[in-house]
Every structure is written in structure tokens, then in C-alpha cells.
């Protein structure tokens, strides 16, 4: 048996899914956490059932891609039973979807979630009357507090599939139209969908080709006849029924004038304080992870790991195995792993902070605050959420672009996400900043994140100007109530992402380290393949590859083949860049100085400006294999995919080139260049502003810069209509 979990975004579906199946999916407090469907087995010893967690939808008429998944699932009746999760504290809008689902004859159970909050507010919902009115079982639950889950499972176990549910009846006028359409569609549910959505609904119906034009004609005729806009007739009828029903079952507490969410929002989205607080929060996240505290924890952790690995290495040496084996273990495996795993604490702090922001509901506020700023770059505030996840890992971030409403938004956002510095790139900055920039290390790290964002934003503008001229990203978003992040959930989130990192370290990265070890410790000496000693590494296979490619990288400041090889290994996974440097500079087992084993080797081989160019190149170049495949999946076009890869490579090279070439100039020259370019930019800006002012005579709109749709003819017509209406109102 297949059971689908359907409900509004952020209604608590994933939490309930975890309770019903006993699995550990992470949950966030922003609409659109579930972007792909997940399935699991129902915890029941009486029946065998598969639970499918579908993306949240507000309605069966959908505009975004992930909503399409859920709604097609219903329209094609792919499940035996629906569990409709309804957020009790947002009954009116949640029941809208419930009513749409009730138009079908699919068996259904309603899980009324958040009943604990209703009780806490001293309110009352008469769920038994609700059950009677809808003619289906209604189970009050609290998914987060694990209340009522057993009742829900029992209700599923004893569900009576033989009973036909009585369908929702609308007023006579609406029913007569449904009947007219149903003569041709022969399916009440799809006729209702046709009435509401028009032609799109026919994709799921079996209508003969000769009936289609008749239906379209009928639809157009109805459009003329109806007093209300045709797409509003059914929603209106439905909402009227819902309001009547809520009147009977819901006893509201009128004493509550201001909720906790209101109070928090008064500060966090305050007119003047909102933006500084936002910037402050973002800065503290990075300060926490990469500032003194994060560095100190990392140092302690690295010291522990080094002690542990040194112990194992001594053991291996004592066993007297063949030199190949002991070299593989000490240099290949532990050399790489030690360098990577050492950065786990910093990553965990970063993941933890992001998890708290997600779970509390602040992410949606961030989108609300940032929308205006992002709009200038052709993005919407909603793009901000995937980009923020991108600071953790590009793979879920690219997948999360599915929550965006338009294809152009999705493409632009996924193309720029790789520039947002992911968690795996953090160790690279960590080791360079720690070794070479000691005191200002977290400022250097922060500057990398800013550079990534800057390139991302400039690229977005470029893409919009060049390819998606007509695109203007949409924004319409619900602000969820704030929730206190639970320890369990925050930990789940943090652990989920850290686990990915560790698993990668143990699998792909390990394999990469072994390959790199082989290539770097074996070579042809006098035409014979043999294990090399440390001072012979230059003759290894890797040495040859690195040396061959080095001239290509000299202009951006690389002066040593291990640097080239480390960059190459980054295409497997960014985490391995540091590990590879560790192997190639043979630093394992060295004295631990300042907490990190690699620092002396870095100091010996890099100048500050070389290191900065190296970091910038690693940041901007093609992401790891996992992210590349996610890109391929989401862009859905080989052309765009290849373009993105080439573009990223070129940008990385160009930026690193600029950094190194300018950085290598004497400081006097640098200041001259900085000063001149500032003046030039200032003058250009002023000239532009002057031209703008002269040209902004196109009526009452606030200049074409803020409203990109201004020039479109349809929009003008629109504006005229509205202006007419406006003057009517004023008279």
C-alpha cells in the first residue's frame, strides 16, 4: 500500500514522516525543505505500507517544479491513501488544500498538527465536528512533541477502504458548471481542476481530440458569463465553505493580540535595525567558526588526531611490513585524512549555526530582508536560501533551487551557487590563513567568502543581461512562525551535513588520496618502476604531470608542481586540496607547530600573495564532482552545463591572475592603481546618474532601474488599466 503525505509547505510533513517511519530526515523552518520525494516504511506490525513524503504545496494548481511533483502525484491518483497534514494554527489556508484533495475520491486521513500550540494559547478546535463535516478521520497530533502519532498509525491500520466518502458540494451555480465540463471529461475531480486551472488540467484527463476544442469553447463561454473571474470562482466558493466551517469548530482566544513571532519580528525585521542585525548575524556565524574560538577548538582536535595517527604509524612501522604497505598507510591514507578530518570542528560549528538559523525560521526573514537587494541582480529573496545553503554544501543548495518559481531563476541561481564558498573549501582557507596571515586570519577567510559572493552577484547580472533579458524573478513567500530550534533537530541537521563530509572523507577522498599517493611515490627511475623516497618525489608520475601543467599556472602565481597537483585534486573533492598538499609536502609525522601539521610546509612554499591567488582559484574553479553532477541534473541542458563549467574555469583563472599580477606590484603602484580606479568608477557612476535623471521621463513609475518590466507593452497596458481604476476610485 502506498500512502502519500501531503500538506502545505512548513506544515510539519517531514517531522511527521520521521515519526511515522522512524527515520532521521532533517527538517527546516522555511517553506520548501522537501524538494524531492522520500519514502519509508510505516512503523506498524499490522499492515505493510510505504509512506511517501512529497514536497509541500499550497494548492493543486502549481507554478514551481517541486510542487509539480506533488500535484501530479495526486492528479494521477498514484496513492492508495492520503495523509493530509493540516497546520492547526493556520487552519483557513491549510483547509483550502484539504478541500481540493477532497474533490477527488482518494481515501484520506487528516492529521491536525500543532494541537499543543492551540492548547497552550487556550484555544479550542472541535476536531470531531471537523471529522463529521469532512466525512473522514481527523486525528489531532503534535509531530514535534510526538503526541498522537500512535492514534494516527492506528487510524491508518483500521481505515475502511470500502466506504465511499461523500464529496464536497458547492453552490448550485458552481455545480452546474462542473456538470457541463464533466459531460466531456467524465471525472468530477478533473472537471473541477479544469474549472480552476483551465487547459493544464487536461494533461491528466483522457479527453478525446474532438472534445478538446469543445471544452475550450465552453471554458471561454463560461468566462464571459461568470460575474467573478473564472479562476476565482472555485477558490471563492471553497473559502466561503471553509470560513463557515471554521466558525463552527474553532474557538479563538481573542485575548492574544501580539504573538511571540510579532514581538521577535518587531526587532529582527525592524525598519532600521533589521539590516544591521542581519549583517551582524552573518558575521557572527563566520566569526564563531573561523575566529579565535573555532581555531582553538580545531587546534586541540588536530593535536588529538596527530597523537592518534602517530601512535598507529609507530605500530605499523614496528610490524615490519613491506615498505610499500607502510608508505601507503602512513603517507597515503593518514597523510591525507589527518589534514582533512582536522577541519571537522570548524565545519560543524558552521553547519550548527546554519541549522539554528534554518530551524528557527530566520531564513525566511533573511529572504524577506534581502529581496530588494537581490532583485537588482535579477534574483529574488528566495534565491537567498539556496545560496545560503551553498555555504554549507553546493549539492543540496543546487537541488534547493527547485523551490524557485521560474525556470530562469532556477538556472541563474544554480549557475552561481558554485561561487558561493562551500564548507569543503573552508579547510583550504583555514590552512593558508592560519599559516600565513596569523592574526588577521579570519578577516582573510571572510574576504574569500565576500569574493565568492561578489563573483556570484556579478555573474548573475551578466547572465541576466546576456541570456535572460526578459526575466524578472518572482517573489511571494509566507513568513512562518518562529520556532524554538530543538536540540534534536539542530543536531540532526548538523550531523547530516557533517556525516556527508566524513563519508566523503572515508570513500571518494580516501580513494583519491591512495591514487595520489601512488602517483606521487612511484616513478620511473632509470626506466624501472619503483617506490620513491621523499627526496625523489620530483621524479614521480605526479611530478611529471604537475611539471607539465605548471607553465599554465605560472601567471597566476604557482611556482611549484605540488600546487598544480593539489588544485587538480580539488576537482575530485575540494576537501582533498589540503590533503594532497599534505602528502606532497610530506608533512605527516612532523612536529606539530601552532596546531597544524601543514603550517611549516605552507610557510616554506607560499608567499602571502601566492596563497591568496591559490585560495581564490580554488574558490572559483569548477566545483567537486558531486556538485558538477548536481548542476547537470538541475540545468537539464548540456549546453548550459558546459557553458557553466567553461565560464567558471575562465573566471577563476582571470580573478587569480588579477590578484597575483596586481598583488606582485610594489605597494606604491598598488595604491596608485587603487586610487585611479576609484576615481574613474566614481566619475562613471556620476555620469550614469546624470544620464538617468535626464532620461527618467517615462511617467509615474520609479525609473526603469527598479522595474525591469517597465518597457514591456503588456505591462504598460496594465499600468494604464490600474491608473484608470485609480482615477475612478478617487472620483
Amino acid at each position, binding site marked *: 500500500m502506498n500512502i502519500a503525505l501531503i500538506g502545505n509547505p512548513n506544515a510539519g510533513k517531514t517531522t511527521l514522516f520521521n515519526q511515522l517511519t522512524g527515520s532521521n530526515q532533517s527538517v527546516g523552518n522555511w517553506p520548501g525543505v522537501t524538494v524531492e520525494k522520500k519514502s519509508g516504511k510505516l512503523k506498524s506490525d499490522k499492515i505493510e505500507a510505504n509512506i511517501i513524503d512529497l514536497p509541500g504545496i499550497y494548492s493543486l494548481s502549481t507554478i514551481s517544479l517541486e510542487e509539480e511533483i506533488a500535484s501530479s502525484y495526486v492528479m494521477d491518483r498514484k496513492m492508495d491513501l492520503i495523509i493530509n497534514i493540516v497546520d492547526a494554527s493556520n487552519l483557513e489556508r491549510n483547509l483550502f488544500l484539504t478541500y481540493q484533495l477532497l474533490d477527488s475520491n482518494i481515501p484520506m486521513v487528516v492529521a491536525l498538527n500543532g494541537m499543543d500550540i492551540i492548547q497552550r494559547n487556550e484555544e479550542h478546535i472541535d476536531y470531531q465536528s471537523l471529522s463529521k463535516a469532512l466525512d473522514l478521520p481527523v486525528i489531532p497530533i503534535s509531530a514535534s512533541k510526538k503526541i498522537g502519532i500512535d492514534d494516527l498509525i492506528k487510524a491508518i491500520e483500521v481505515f475502511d477502504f470500502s466506504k465511499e466518502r461523500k464529496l464536497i458540494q458547492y453552490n448550485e451555480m458552481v455545480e452546474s458548471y462542473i456538470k457541463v465540463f464533466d459531460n466531456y471529461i467524465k471525472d468530477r475531480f478533473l472537471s473541477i481542476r479544469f474549472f480552476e486551472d483551465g487547459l493544464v488540467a487536461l494533461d491528466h484527463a483522457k479527453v478525446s481530440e474532438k472534445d478538446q476544442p469543445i471544452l475550450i469553447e465552453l471554458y471561454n463561454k463560461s468566462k464571459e458569463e461568470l460575474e467573478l473571474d473564472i479562476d476565482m470562482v472555485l477558490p471563492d466558493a471553497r473559502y466561503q465553505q471553509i470560513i463557515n466551517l471554521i466558525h463552527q469548530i474553532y474557538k479563538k482566544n481573542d485575548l492574544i493580540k501580539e504573538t511571540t513571532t510579532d514581538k521577535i519580528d518587531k526587532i529582527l525585521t525592524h525598519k532600521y535595525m533589521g539590516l544591521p542585525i542581519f549583517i551582524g548575524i552573518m558575521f557572527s556565524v563566520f566569526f564563531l567558526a573561523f575566529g579565535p574560538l573555532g581555531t582553538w577548538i580545531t587546534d586541540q582536535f588536530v593535536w588529538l588526531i596527530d597523537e592518534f595517527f602517530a601512535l598507529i604509524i609507530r605500530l605499523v612501522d614496528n610490524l615490519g611490513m613491506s615498505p610499500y604497505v607502510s608508505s601507503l598507510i602512513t603517507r597515503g591514507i593518514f597523510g591525507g585524512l589527518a589534514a582533512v578530518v582536522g577541519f571537522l570542528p570548524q565545519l560543524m560549528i558552521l553547519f550548527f549555526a546554519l541549522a539554528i538559523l534554518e530551524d528557527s525560521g530566520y531564513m525566511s526573514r533573511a529572504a524577506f530582508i534581502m529581496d530588494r537587494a537581490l532583485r537588482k541582480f535579477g534574483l529574488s529573496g528566495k534565491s537567498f536560501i539556496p545560496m545560503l545553503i551553498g555555504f554549507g554544501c553546493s549539492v543540496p543548495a543546487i537541488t534547493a533551487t527547485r523551490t524557485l518559481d521560474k525556470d530562469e531563476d532556477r538556472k541563474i541561481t544554480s549557475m552561481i551557487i558554485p561561487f558561493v564558498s562551500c564548507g569543503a573549501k573552508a579547510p583550504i582557507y583555514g590552512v593558508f590563513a592560519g599559516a600565513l596571515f596569523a592574526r588577521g586570519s579570519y578577516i582573510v577567510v571572510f574576504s574569500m567568502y565576500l569574493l565568492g559572493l561578489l563573483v556570484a552577484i556579478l555573474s548573475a547580472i551578466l547572465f541576466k543581461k546576456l541570456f535572460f533579458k526578459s526575466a524578472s524573478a518572482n517573489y511571494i513567500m509566507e513568513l512562518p512562525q518562529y520556532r524554538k530550534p530543538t536540540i534534536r533537530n539542530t543536531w540532526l541537521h548538523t550531523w547530516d551535513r557533517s556525516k556527508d563530509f566524513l563519508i566523503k572523507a572515508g570513500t571518494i577522498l580516501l580513494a583519491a588520496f591512495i591514487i595520489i599517493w601512488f602517483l606521487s611515490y612511484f616513478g620511473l627511475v632509470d626506466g624501472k618502476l619503483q617506490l620513491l623516497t621523499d627526496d625523489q618525489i620530483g621524479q614521480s608520475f605526479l611530478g611529471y604531470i604537475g611539471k607539465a601543467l605548471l607553465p599554465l599556472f605560472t601567471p597566476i602565481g604557482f611556482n611549484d608542481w605540488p600546487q598544480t597537483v593539489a588544485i587538480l585534486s580539488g576537482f575530485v573533492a575540494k576537501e582533498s586540496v589540503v590533503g594532497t598538499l599534505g602528502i606532497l609536502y610530506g608533512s605527516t609525522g612532523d612536529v606539530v607547530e601552532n596546531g597544524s601539521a601543514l603550517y611549516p610546509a605552507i610557510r616554506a612554499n607560499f608567499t602571502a600573495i601566492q596563497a591568496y591567488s591559490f585560495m581564490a582559484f580554488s574558490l572559483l574553479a569548477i566545483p567537486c564532482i558531486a556538485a558538477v553532477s548536481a548542476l547537470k541534473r538541475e540545468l537539464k541542458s548540456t549546453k548550459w552545463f558546459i557553458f557553466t563549467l567553461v565560464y567558471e574555469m575562465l573566471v577563476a583563472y582571470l580573478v587569480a591572475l588579477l590578484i597575483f599580477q596586481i598583488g606582485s606590484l610594489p605597494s606604491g603602484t598598488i595604491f596608485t592603481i587603487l586610487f585611479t580606479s576609484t576615481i574613474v568608477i566614481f566619475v562613471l557612476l556620476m555620469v550614469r546618474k546624470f544620464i538617468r535623471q535626464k532620461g527618467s521621463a517615462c511617467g509615474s513609475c520609479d525609473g526603469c532601474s527598479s522595474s525591469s518590466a517597465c518597457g514591456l507593452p503588456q505591462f504598460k497596458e496594465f499600468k494604464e488599466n490600474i491608473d484608470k*481604476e485609480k482615477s475612478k476610485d478617487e472620483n
Partner: protein
Amino acid sequence: MTLQDIVPGQTCIIKAIRTNNLRKRIIDMGLIIGTQVYVKKTAPLGDPVEIIVRGYSLTLRKAEARTILVERLDTE
């Protein structure tokens, strides 16, 4: 007047929706002719606006608010 003209703290009733590309979403979120809307605040940068409709909080851009015709309700 349009929803954009409503000052935060005021309530209005929807008269017509002329939005083109987000129309369906706006209707499904519960904004229909006759629906009461309370304008709560604008974002720190002046746009989008936050409105309370059907008991929950929705944010939309002024560009969309401009396409929703409303009538002000003078409560209190």
C-alpha cells in the same frame, strides 16, 4: 487604489486582481475579491511588504501589490 498605497497598520478589502504572472499563486494563497488584508510592514529596504491575510503572514513585492486593487477599510 492599490495594495501598494495602503500604509502599514491599515486594513483593506480586495476589489480586483490584475496580476499576470503570479496570479494563480496569489489566488491560492487566499487573496480573492472580498478578502480582508492587513498591511503589517515593509522590509527594511522598503520592499517587499508583509501582509496578514486569513490569519497568516505573507510577503510580496510592491510590483505585485500594485496590481491588486483594494478599498481601504477605516477601522477604529
